[in-house]
């Protein structure tokens, strides 16, 4: 009888003891700084660049079998869309929402030339990088994923 009571008390005292979470705490304290250092809070992606197409210099005589060589030129005041068999289109950057106008113009070019996937972006020497990326986004959204960069000079 006595021994049973002793056993019951020792069991109760065993159960009532707090869980020893200090080793777990130590593990967490070591893991969290390590993971914080290697954590990715910014989603960095890339835009793949292509080389400009060959034979750009002899695109003056635009024959029916000539490649389109679609180009978007970023000037300080204008966006210019041009290419073989295309009527030159100028979009004023001071107008309201020139990006939408550029997207619409590129959309119509893509609709009339569905095989073409390439576009050249021609920039002036002082064109800001962020403007170039913005135009790249517009061309990609319009269905021209293959982009190459060229200097205007």
């Amino acid at each position, binding site marked *: 009888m006595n021994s049973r009571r002793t056993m019951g008390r020792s069991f109760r005292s065993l159960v009532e003891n*707090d869980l020893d*979470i200090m080793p*777990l*705490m130590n593990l*967490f304290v070591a*893991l*969290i700084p390590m*993971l*914080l250092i*290697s*954590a*990715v*809070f*910014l*989603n*960095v*992606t*890339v*835009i*793949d*660049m292509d*080389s400009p197409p060959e034979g750009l210099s002899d695109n003056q005589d635009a024959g029916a079998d000539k490649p389109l060589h679609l180009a978007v030129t970023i000037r300080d005041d204008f966006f210019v869309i041009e290419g073989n068999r295309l009527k030159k289109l100028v979009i004023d950057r001071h107008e309201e929402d020139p990006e939408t106008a550029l997207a619409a113009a590129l959309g119509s070019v893509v609709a009339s030339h569905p095989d073409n996937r390439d576009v050249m972006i021609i*920039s*002036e*020497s*002082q*064109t*800001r*990088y*962020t403007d*170039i*990326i*913005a135009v*790249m*986004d517009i061309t*990609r*959204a319009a269905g021209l994923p293959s982009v190459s*960069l060229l*200097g205007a000079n």
Partner: protein
Amino acid sequence: MARRRRKKSGHGRQPSPLPLTSMMDILTVLLLFLLKSFVVEGEVITPVPGVDLPESSSETKPRASVVVAIFDQTVMLDGRMVAQVEPNDHVSGMLIEGLAEKLDQTRAKELEIARLRGEEAEYVPRIAIQGDLEIPFELLERVMYTCNQSGFRDISLAVIGAS
């Protein structure tokens, strides 16, 4: 009286355990969040401090590549400054000497590693350019030209993607 006071603050009292349950809850949630962000697909490009990357709608994941960072007039290769480019400096042509030299060394090293692994045929010199959003095209063009001259023809531009 004195004995009673001693008894109250004395050694006989059992110290109450520190309540750690709430802290453990926070740590567990934090650990799960960090583990989730740790397990990402593909290569990870860490933005170089000082470079403000432009935002873009691109969702293409980066691949393993050499990283060139450009901000103000500074050009860095894999975290080390390799050249300082003065604006409108066309005396030396389009090539950036310091960058070209380091790129040639990097390419030779990578090619040697690929050869030792027996992957020489599959080796493609790749470069990711981290440009600050305010840099002029002139500087980007010179960096791209230099990369091209050093054999890095697979060029990609690092941006902050849509989250």
